[in-house]
């Protein structure tokens, strides 16, 4: 019969001093909605850094230090192939597809210090921008910090 027992005044008082969860839940939900909305506005974007060199970008800037080796400079050229695919030349590859060029560049850079390399990317106007970004991304992924776009 304990379920039918009337609640006494002390029981009522004890239940009244429990912390109210309602405001905390309200505030938490509002903050949650705000962060969800902010995340959808910002969007999942990444950033690839590229320099804008003057000239052809391959010449050394300023007076060279006679006691320091100049950085190794590589030119990468992208052009539209007859089959519509982008052909890439550089790092010893000649008119390779983007995937084959990235493989070749990975082999070459593996034996070098990537942070000391300078890569200048030059592309024909008809080459898809996405392929230029793909080559830039491959260079950055290998640790090359000085990447120029012409």
């Amino acid at each position, binding site marked *: 019969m304990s379920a039918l027992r009337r609640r006494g005044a002390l029981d009522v008082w004890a239940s009244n001093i429990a912390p109210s969860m309602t405001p905390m839940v*309200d505030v938490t939900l*509002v903050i949650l909605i705000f962060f969800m*909305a902010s995340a959808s*506005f910002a969007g999942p*974007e*990444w*950033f690839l850094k590229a320099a804008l060199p003057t000239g052809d970008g391959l010449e050394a800037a300023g007076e060279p230090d006679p006691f320091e080796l100049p950085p190794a400079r590589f030119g990468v050229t992208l052009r539209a192939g007859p089959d519509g695919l982008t052909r890439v030349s550089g790092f010893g590859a000649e008119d390779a597809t983007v995937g084959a060029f990235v493989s070749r560049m990975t082999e070459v850079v593996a034996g070098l210090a990537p942070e000391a390399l300078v890569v200048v990317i030059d592309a024909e106007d008809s*080459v898809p921008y996405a392929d230029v*970004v793909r080559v*830039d991304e491959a260079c950055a992924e290998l640790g090359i910090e000085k990447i120029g776009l012409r």
Partner: protein
Amino acid sequence: MRRRSFHAAHGVGRVNVTPMIDVVMVLIVFYLIVGKLASERIESMELPRSAFGDETPPPDPLVINVLPGEDEPRIVVETFEVSVGALEKAVRERLRARDGIGVQIRASRTLPYGAVRPVLEACRRGGARTVLLSTERSS
């Protein structure tokens, strides 16, 4: 015999602040979202995909959007559409006004490089030495 009152101890006249906090929080969030929408400087487009890149956005960058247009690509600097000819001046003025800011280029992956090259050249002539290319995470 007088019965004890348990409600008197809690203060009958106390103001209930719960609805006030609710309303204030909703107002704060409303103004935060409206402010963020008003300052939105990016255009919706298909960015090139990449599996590598820097996740940290530059602080308060100059955002240049390059979108496909009917005849020629549309260039939107923050919220204003400009021509290729006027882009150099726009970049120079903004770089001068906000010293040390980065230039972020958001170009559609459907564009050829020939549509983006004039933008890069205008940035270089306008005084930018480096740019950040926005990409979409592919993983």
